[in-house]
């Protein structure tokens, strides 16, 4: 397993070019091309703004403008959720490669995660732009934490992606289950409501068990709220857990590796 893990480094060229391929192929043939990567989050933000300022004004103290607050959580959530659903289908979709070419299968789910990370990065300028427009600039010192959160989310997502991809190859139902779990998970995470609301605090333990809470809250604290990061202990703990989870997932993937060529 360790040897295989080490060879992941060797595949970085392959991963890099596959991610590039996915991004290129995604918008090939469309008129706007890469602009869509900016337009999509922009439209999403405009819709949220309209709903939460005009249709259903939300006046929670200290969380204004509300649409921007939500956007801080939704962007990373989209990265997370899309990565997992892409990864779950990645081995099945790449069946031709696994069956016909000597190909390191673990590359496929990782490419899903990394491709969606690039989309996440492309959405960030829109967020920053609007934070500045609304005179709500992030605390510049807090931004030091930003790469750390991203890195932790990357490891956390990659671990889950590996495990899901490996299991989904055997149990196709996982893909459908996952779609539903992700919807539930989204609403169970303080993304469209602030985590310090009394109702949330009542179920604090439950929210702490939901690991994505710590990522979402960290993003909100870094990008949206002023003041120091109150959540860093949880975040670092999640980082430690993510590494363990990644290793465990890789172990599982490695165990099932030989069966992929037969089941996908």
């Amino acid at each position, binding site marked *: 397993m360790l040897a295989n893990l080490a060879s992941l480094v060797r595949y970085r*060229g*392959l991963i890099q*070019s*596959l991610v590039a*391929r996915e991004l*290129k*192929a995604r918008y*090939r*043939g469309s008129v706007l091309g890469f602009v869509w990567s900016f337009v999509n989050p922009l439209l999403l933000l405009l819709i949220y703004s309209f709903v939460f300022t005009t249709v259903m004004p939300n006046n929670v103290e200290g969380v204004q403008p509300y649409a921007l607050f939500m956007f801080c959580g939704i962007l990373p959530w989209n990265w997370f959720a899309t990565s997992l659903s892409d990864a779950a289908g990645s081995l099945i979709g790449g069946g*031709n*490669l*696994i*069956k*016909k*070419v*000597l*190909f390191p299968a673990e590359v496929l789910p990782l490419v899903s995660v990394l491709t969606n990370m690039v989309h996440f990065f492309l959405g960030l300028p829109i967020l920053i732009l609007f934070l500045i427009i609304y005179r709500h600039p992030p605390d510049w010192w807090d931004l030091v934490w930003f790469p750390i959160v991203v890195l932790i989310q990357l490891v956390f997502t990659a671990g889950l992606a590996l495990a899901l991809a490996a*299991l989904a190859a*055997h*149990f*196709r*139902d*996982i893909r459908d*289950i996952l779609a539903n779990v992700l919807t539930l998970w989204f609403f169970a995470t303080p993304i469209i409501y602030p985590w310090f609301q009394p109702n949330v605090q009542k179920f604090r333990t439950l929210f702490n068990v939901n690991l994505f809470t710590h990522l979402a809250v960290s993003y909100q604290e870094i990008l949206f709220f002023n003041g120091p990061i109150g959540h860093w202990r949880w975040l670092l703990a999640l980082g430690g857990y993510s590494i363990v989870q990644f290793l465990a997932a890789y172990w599982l993937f490695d*165990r*099932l590796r*030989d*069966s992929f*060529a*037969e*089941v996908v």
Partner: protein
Amino acid sequence: MTSAIELVNVTKVYRRYGGRQFSTLKSALLQRSILRDLRPSETFPALTDVTFSVPKGSTYGVIGKNGSGKSTALKLVAGITKPTSGTVRVVGRISALIELGAGFHPEISGRENVFINGIMLGLSKREIQERFDEIVDFAELQEFIDAPVKTYSSGMYMRLGFAVAIHVNPDVLLVDEVLAVGDEGFTHKCLDKFAEFRRRGKTILLVTHSLNLVERFCDEALWLDEGRGLSHGDPKRVVGAYLTKVEQGEAQLLAETTAKAVEEAGRDGPGRQEGRAGQVPQEGPEPQERPADPTSNMYQAVEGRWGSREVEITDVALLDASGQQSFVFHSGDRVSIRLKVRAAQPIDDFVFGIGLFNADGVCCYGTNTYLEEMDPEQLAGDAEAMFSIDSLDLIEGTYKLDVAVHKRDGYPYDYHRLLYTFRVKSRTHDVGIYRPRHQWSFSPHIRFTPRS
């Protein structure tokens, strides 16, 4: 000589998952045995105890019918799947021409796909850069290399895949039936490329149905049958053994076809027999002539059996030179057609007829005893008629046989239409309907090199 590929007692068992894929996650979780539950309940051995080694620098052919485990063997060598037991050892860089263009993405250009495919096959960006022009030239895609791959024809797609795979510069090249990828010209180019590989001392493992290729190209061959290595060594000998087995299989199949045709014709016999016997005279002069002259309605070649059965053909057999029943003959063989007949009452008006038809329904030959000026005298009880051909001078193909006993005016006693099938094999792939005895001769200014 050191071997480049070595398989020792390799067994590969595939799992049959049946319908389990749909409902097992829950049960697997309930029993907390996801890993254990992934073990199959039913297994299917694709390879059983296969051992062979390919010396470095040689070309090795694997033949066998569909489903005999050839591709599985190749995948094991390529490392795509792991053997259930036994060891597989390969020395050097492998390139597998198993599925060409397997990693191509349809939306992006041929150029980008070449790079990504090359990286997948283990090349570095620089190496691809260096070989890029060569690859495109080889694939003959200069004009289209910047078009998205989805716009390629399947031939273009395959050529590009082949070109990339072959430019990986492997030590061991695995080829799975991919020579049928292009037109004649491209196939020649591929063969030239293989020849170049051989000269440079690379090892080639070739899985193919083209026995010709194996005989011409390979230093050694292996014949796999139902996952077992039946014979290996000199390609000519292995191919010969394989062909013999194939012939046996074909003969078996033809025997079954014939038995079925006869049975079906016999089943709806009684009703049809009445109708036919009554109908034939009313259909005018042409149908009346039909039985007498099997060539007259060769375009209405419908299998069947009719007649009054006053004389019944009880058995029809094709016999080879040694008198054994057979269904596969070689062009030029001695063949006899034996009819066993039974006449319920003694009869003094009868004609035996024979017709040979090829797969297109064209009558290759037809005759009867009346045409050959034999006037009937008496036929009674059980009897046997034998029609012998000294030399079956037909070209390769599948043939059907008409046999009949009828009156001189064409009234059928028992007419068997195209019920019997046999196959003629030939080393010469000449064309036409029959092969006249012939030979070539030349004046001294014309010379030929004898082919090995």
